[in-house]
């Protein structure tokens, strides 16, 4: 079953065709990786899918419903969470509070009930806290709950951001370079975490430069170059694809 279907999506910035007529789909309960040299349009595609940009053409179906043109918070509420290439945690908040923000879409209390601190609000708050702690425990960062999120090490911040995304309980999780800035050991741990997240029933679409991570955990890989899709297959076939080899070995050597 296809969870996400991208059909003929294009995006132009002035004279630059950042993404041109790209189509692909992500099957439920799989890990799909999006690779390509710098400037290939990977992050643009991510921003189009998550609503930060509106495509010029094409459709994006999530749960078989069109989501292109919706605003990011509306798409998030439909069950799509994302992380950012440059970690974007909320400063002056603890890591627990950061993760609890991920529970936002599952809460109902509004200004009035929060103002009056109704029992319903308190219950909801307790539930959010428990769920956030459980996820932090799953990622091995429960011990950092009380620390200010932006004071943590880079690797820890990545995990907090991941926990925040998971706290949304998304059907689809978009990870924008989850291993960027991590050392080899941390990258290996991240790879195993991503697999375990998939095993929890979260479908994953990720952009990544680290080929070991991509080849190890992905079920399928799509390769972009200059905004165009040039391959979309299982890792073994991608590794033998001549176009891909040419881009990666003959090009900028950016892998």
């Amino acid at each position, binding site marked *: 079953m296809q969870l996400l279907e991208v059909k003929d999506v294009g995006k132009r910035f002035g004279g630059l065709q950042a993404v041109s007529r790209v189509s692909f789909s992500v099957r439920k309960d799989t890990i799909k990786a999006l690779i390509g040299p710098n400037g290939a349009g990977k992050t643009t595609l991510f921003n189009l899918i998550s609503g930060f940009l509106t495509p010029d053409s094409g459709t994006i179906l999530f749960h078989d419903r069109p989501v292109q043109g919706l605003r990011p*918070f509306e798409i998030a509420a439909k069950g799509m969470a994302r992380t950012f290439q440059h970690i974007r945690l*909320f*400063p002056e908040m603890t890591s627990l509070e950061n993760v609890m*923000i991920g529970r936002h*879409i599952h809460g109902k209390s509004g200004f009035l009930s929060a*103002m009056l601190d109704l029992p319903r609000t*308190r219950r909801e708050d307790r539930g959010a806290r428990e769920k956030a702690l459980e996820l932090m425990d799953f990622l091995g960062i429960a011990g950092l709950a009380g620390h200010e999120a932006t004071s943590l090490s880079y690797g820890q911040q990545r995990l907090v951001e991941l926990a925040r995304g998971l706290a949304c309980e998304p059907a689809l999780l978009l990870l924008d370079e989850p291993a960027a800035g991590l050392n080899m050991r941390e990258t290996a741990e991240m790879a195993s975490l991503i697999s375990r997240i998939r095993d929890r029933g979260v479908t994953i679409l990720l952009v990544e430069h680290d080929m070991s991570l991509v080849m190890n955990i992905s079920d399928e890989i799509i390769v972009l170059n200059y905004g165009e899709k040039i391959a979309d297959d299982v890792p073994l076939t991608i590794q033998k694809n001549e176009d891909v080899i040419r881009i990666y070995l003959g090009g900028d050597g950016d892998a």
Partner: protein
Amino acid sequence: MRSRIHFALFGLVAAVIAVQQVTAYTGSEYYLTQLTMSAYYSLVIVGLCLLMGYAGQISLGHAGFFAIGGYISAFLTTHDLSPLKDGGIVAFLSKAGLLSQRTDLYGGQLLTVQPWAACIIAIFATVVIAYIVGGPVLRLKGHYLAMATLGFGTIIYRIAIGTTALGAADGLSDVPPFRLLPFLEVSGEMSDRVQNYYIAWGLVILAVLFSLNIIHSRIGRALRSIHGAEDAANAMGIDTARYKLNTFVLSAVFASVAGVFLTHYNGGIGPSEASIMKSVRYVAIVAVGGMANLWGALVMGTLLNFLSLRGYLGTYDDAVFGGILIIIMLFVPQGLLHIDVFRGLRGFFLRRPAEKET
């Protein structure tokens, strides 16, 4: 966290009672007048702190909302409707018990809107205006938002000072007392001084309780996340525009309620309440208090307004608040009640710019 809120609020209640007792024993009850007025200004500041410190949105137009509340209730409770007595609407209002008959200073008969009805109308009008203004304006950020809200404040000021029906430069006077309950009345009568002190501080305590509840809730976390990283908040499913707007409206309502009550307490309102310098003063006090520090804003709001109302700041009153704003931004952008004050000062004198986190 919750018990800490209750503990701090208990401290506030105790302090409010203690101050009143001290003035009673030392025969210095005349201080209560300025403390009551300071309380109402602090109400504006608590709301503005929620907007600026937590949601991260500036407003240089909050004196405008204060004036909207004050002027609407002043106008409705002083404008004589007797000539229209037989008109359909007035007759209807009269039947609904929303009007009251009273005698003015010169013995003439006045038919005006009841203070309760006027208060509700004023708040409702504030909500409508805040939504209309906030909707487009809150799309702006930083300097642009500051300028747009400044524009709004200027419009309200010019309306107040330029409208004959609102008393132009003289403002409106002879505003009747506001009977909240049969035994509780907002008025400037000497004999009501103590109960008015408690009415005003009761309102502030309620506002602080509501605000603290919001800050420590799902809503408060959402607001702080908007302040910290708006696009990430959006990606987490937070309708950032709606949250900013709702906070703007809520803080406008705080200001408006303060305007309504202080107008009944003073028996009138003048255009200076709508002036830009008032808005600047509110912003300066929130900054002195430490932006995202409700208690700091409350303490500073009470202290500085009290000093100003007692005349301790002399003719340089407005200049003092302008100066405060400059000094705070230079030395202690996190506010005066922040522990890092001394580090900030040292940093400045060692020619390293103080950290700017706000």
